[in-house]
């Protein structure tokens, strides 16, 4: 808190010269205020569920609105399953594409391809959901000969499509920020372009790429509408647990589907906010970790470059 106090005193002093600085300061602090408000309100509204079920809210295996029983394990598992499936598809493709765009693609095409991928990232999730439900799910159903195509696999494929642009964007930026001198040094020693990529570019940007994967994870686990439309929405842990052809019910889908009918102040209402708090916590941790990685990385690079 101390630096904030010092800040306030500093601001008080400079106010006489430029009153505007107070407004600027308040706007800048708004992000801190909003993030704390979010945490506070989710905790407040979700507290009842945590008090009623204790640890069973996290590890209970039944989520039954009719029985007023709320154990979030199948939902947490569903979310993690769908997201990990998506990352298995999206990470290799995304990272390879990023390397290709930065290192191989001729300069004239680079802007064009980057712009197209940015456009892909801007397509709203409801459109992906629509396409997934109407076109992808029937394909999956007929390919695997299962009665319904709204299963974890469909959700994973759709999520992969949605997170590839994020992964390409962030890891592309990381890769192109590798100092030019590094590459030139390797090339001067007689390395081919491929060898330079393998022995210099990838090792140097490894942790940055890890950070981009974590950001992709955070994006994917919070995805709601598209996932909800194709995941099947049955609150079970698949049998066996790696059965991607089983329906699941990810956290985000539960919140979106049940919030409309939950009476304000009821246990169900509180349980949904509890789910929100779980999601908030997961993304908070993932984002903070990614931040730490990036910050340490840039410090390291700065140290080498002086």
């Amino acid at each position, binding site marked *: 808190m101390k630096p904030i106090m010092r800040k306030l005193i500093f601001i008080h002093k400079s106010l006489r010269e430029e009153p505007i600085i107070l407004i600027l300061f308040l706007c800048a602090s708004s*992000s801190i205020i909003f993030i704390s408000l979010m945490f506070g309100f989710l905790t407040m509204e979700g507290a009842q569920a945590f008090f009623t079920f204790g640890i069973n809210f996290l590890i209970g295996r039944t989520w039954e609105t009719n029985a007023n029983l709320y154990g979030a394990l199948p939902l947490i598992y569903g979310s993690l399953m769908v997201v990990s499936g998506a990352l298995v598809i999206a990470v290799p493709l995304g990272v390879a594409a990023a390397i290709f765009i930065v290192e191989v*693609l001729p300069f004239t095409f680079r802007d064009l391809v980057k712009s197209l991928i940015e456009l892909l990232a801007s397509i709203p999730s409801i459109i992906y959901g629509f396409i997934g439900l109407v076109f992808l799910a029937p394909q999956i159903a007929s390919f695997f000969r299962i009665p319904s195509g709204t299963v974890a696999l469909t959700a994973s494929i759709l999520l992969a499509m949605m997170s590839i642009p994020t992964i390409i964007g962030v890891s592309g930026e990381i890769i192109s920020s590798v100092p030019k001198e590094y590459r030139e040094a390797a090339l001067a020693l007689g390395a081919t372009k491929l060898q330079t990529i393998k022995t210099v570019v990838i090792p140097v940007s490894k942790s940055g790429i890890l950070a981009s994967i974590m950001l992709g994870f955070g994006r994917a686990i919070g995805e709601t509408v598209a996932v909800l439309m194709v995941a099947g929405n049955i609150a079970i842990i698949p049998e066996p647990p790696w059965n991607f052809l089983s329906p699941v019910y990810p956290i985000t889908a539960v919140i979106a589907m049940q919030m409309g009918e939950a009476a304000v102040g009821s246990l169900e209402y509180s349980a949904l906010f509890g789910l929100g708090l779980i999601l908030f916590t997961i993304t908070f941790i993932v984002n903070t970790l990614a931040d730490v990685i990036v910050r340490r990385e840039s410090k390291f690079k700065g140290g080498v470059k002086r």
Partner: protein
Amino acid sequence: MNHLKEKIFFAILGIPVLICLAAILWIILILSTGISTLRWELLTTSVLQGGIFEMVIGTLYLLIGAVGVATPIGVLAAIYLVEYSSKGRFARIIDQALNNMAGVPSIVVGLFGYTFFSRLLGLGISMAAGWLTLMLMILPIIVRGTEEALKMIPSSFKEAALALGASRWRAIHSVVLPAAAPGIITNILLGMARVAGETAAILFTSCVLVTRGLPKSPLEPVMALAFNLFVKITVLGESSERVFGIAIVLFLIVVSIAAAAIVLRIYYRRKQPWLR
């Protein structure tokens, strides 16, 4: 030999890029099968008569309101971070908070918007609650984008103004800000594209399926393309021509905003040499 191996390897690396481009084509192809539903009357007739007029205007209302709230806060915050803050621990906390805000899932933002804006502040299910909720999603994008745009302006611009006797704020708002404006606008547009199709955040806070005409005040609920598409598909199980029409119109709105942002950015990068 080595050369050939390298060529093959690079070709393999290029496949995912082709997949991405194919995905864009695939989406456009699917949507274009419904293009016959897209007639001008669809856009201009009221929902009560089978059109989607109120949804289109409602979506634009939501967008403009959210950007209107987020832009002043975001731009001023970025000015503080770039020009005034001492790069100490406080700036780092703000930085972290912004990153975390950008990462909060939209459905969680929606939950918060419902308890805070709709219930605690008493805005109810209304356009204003939707503006504020969407503002939470755009704010980090605008702050980040404005920061970047401000950092790209050479310090000589500001120094020249200061040397002429301008105060710091004067130098910023009359010299630095205009020079950075194209960059800032690009990012506002990108923020708009991000929330134009947003469904989860407005699910509980500002939308209803049908309204009688356009909302007359910010405290009334509003219709939106994304929300209607969502409810029609998941709850009502509808897959009529109108659903296709809504999807195509939403797609076109979002993609044209994003494309405008990208084109603007490329254009100004070429025009303003110091941005390179």
